């Protein structure tokens, strides 16, 4: 009985491990994700040291966009950090949420309302959700620019920054959790 239990737990761990590897895989292995992308450029201007900017462009060629649209899903672009050193949103003096960052994009019908911050108990991710994915076009380069506020306490340290593409099926309110996947476009070490 113990052997059987150990075998089952082992199989379960292998299955979870495989799923994790797939989930955290590169977007080069996902046919629904953008076909090509630039690296994330990070700029901190000396005359504006309280802010850091990221910018990335990506494009779906015909086949990948066709595969994405066949999923009937929302597209989500994310800039994630492994440490709470930059903020897009933060908690104010009276516990109120304050949007301190800004964004600019050519993606259709974007919203930043799914963004989560470690300060407010979530993951550390800027998320731009595209509510009208049917308006995406093939062979069109989309640009996402994000500006974050830099926490003075963490400056001089390093952290990992990565960009992700994600989809979530349409059906339930803006996300059918039964149909969800994501992949990593780029990953880099940055100075906070």
């Amino acid at each position, binding site marked *: *009985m113990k052997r*059987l239990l150990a075998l089952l737990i082992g199989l379960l761990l292998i299955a979870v491990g495989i799923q994790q590897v797939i989930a955290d895989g590169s977007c080069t292995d996902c046919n629904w994700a953008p076909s090509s992308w630039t690296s994330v450029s990070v*700029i901190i*201007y000396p*005359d*504006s040291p309280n*802010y850091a*900017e990221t*910018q990335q*462009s990506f*494009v779906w060629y015909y086949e990948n966009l066709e595969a994405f649209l066949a999923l009937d899903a929302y597209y989500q672009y994310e800039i994630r950090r492994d440490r709470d050193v930059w903020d897009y949103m933060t*908690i104010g003096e009276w*516990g*109120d*949420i*304050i*949007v*301190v*960052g*800004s*964004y*600019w*994009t*050519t993606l*259709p*019908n*974007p*919203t*930043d*309302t*799914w963004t*989560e911050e470690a300060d*407010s*108990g*979530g993951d550390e991710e800027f998320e731009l959700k595209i*509510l*009208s994915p049917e308006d995406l076009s093939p062979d*069109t*380069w989309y*640009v996402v*620019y994000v*500006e974050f506020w830099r926490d003075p306490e963490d400056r001089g340290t390093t952290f990992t920054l990565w960009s992700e593409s994600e989809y979530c099926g349409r*059906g*339930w*309110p*803006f*996300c*059918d*959790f*039964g149909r969800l996947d994501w992949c990593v476009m780029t990953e880099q070490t940055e100075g906070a």
Partner: protein
Amino acid sequence: MRKTIILGVFAVLLIVSSTLLLEASSLRNTSSIPETVIPYSKNMGVLKLQHEVVLVRNGYLAVIPNVTSKEELLAFVQQNKERLNSLRDGEVVSATITFKRPLRKSELLRLLGNNVKIVAVRYKSYPKGIGQMPYPMEVNESKELEHLEEKLRVELKEKSGIKEFRLIEGFISAKVIAPKEELVRILKSKDVFDVNIGPRDIAEEHGTKQMIIEDIWWYYEKYVLGQKR
């Protein structure tokens, strides 16, 4: 024999649990949406209302309009008008104002007046692009915005062949905090399409007054301006 019985029991348990999991999975794919908060993650729940989706977060609600036709859009705007009128006199609330055309900075400030606190603004770029930034904004004088405009100009020319680019064609919406009377006044302007104070009853149920409300510019452009064009 004992081993066989244990294995048999185990197999039955596996079948039962698989069936239950399959049922749960098919339930998740159903189109019927419960009117209760659906857990999204450990820190967030989602609630579907008639014309909007509400994210119940730690200490605040995020409200995202969800309309699929001009009729739904106009019904949503009417609902928002009724919500605004139902406020007590003098009550101060968060609101998002969607304009009917991209406004210049001076027009935006004149329209909103001195008794309205601007939290953030969304703007439209020419010929494409949408941006959002917190207020106070530094539109002409900001070095950052100048840098950004130049960077994007280069990027758009290189990747999309766009020769003429302006970062801020005009402001399409504003997230504000204001008393009822000011919002009622603003709604009467010919340049304002919608003033949305969000579902305050839901906010109260969840013990918060703070809301981040998305504008309806995209739908206005698609279902109202698009039809005119």
